[in-house]
């Protein structure tokens, strides 16, 4: 979902508890260039919003970096 919302992004997701609902995502995307961290996270969270709303995900830790 993240990769679809941010074309060209590299996404790594780690399932922290093994239950699939507490995830850690590392996202590297060219779209992050020149925007603040909070805006980078907003983009990632917007991409997975549906999964929060339907309860598939309870917690998502996000780490972002600008893809070069």
């Amino acid at each position: 979902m993240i990769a679809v919302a941010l074309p060209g992004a590299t996404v790594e997701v780690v399932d922290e508890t093994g239950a699939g609902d507490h995830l850690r995502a590392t996202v590297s995307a060219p779209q992050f260039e020149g925007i603040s961290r909070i805006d980078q996270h907003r983009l990632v969270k917007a991409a997975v919003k549906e999964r929060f709303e339907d309860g598939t995900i309870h917690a998502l830790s996000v780490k972002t970096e600008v893809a070069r």
Partner: protein
Amino acid sequence: MADPQLKEKVEELIAANPVLLFMKGTPEMPRCGFSMRVVQVLDTMDVEYGAIDVLPALQPLREVTTEISDWQTFPQLYVNGELLGGADIVEEMFASGELAEALGVEQPAEAPQQAAPAQSPPLQIE
């Protein structure tokens, strides 16, 4: 739609406190692992900050911050009126020195004390 009176109150608080943390619990007794992590970073920075416990009005406050900052989860750290981020962003910015810069303080030499041991994941109240 957020409660307009609560929204006004929150906006006043953000304007009045250069460093303001919305958290679950209090700095003395955080009720969520993510909130505890931000408290630990702020304590390490030796900076004065206001803290608001969101738990008594979680849903109304969530509606307010969604309108103000397009951010639904807590903790939320505001510096000079702007949302800086939650626990992940605050820790990342602490590690890179950007947080010290945003707060206008020296980067402390010591790392924040370790959060809960690895075997107990952060508490998520919801």
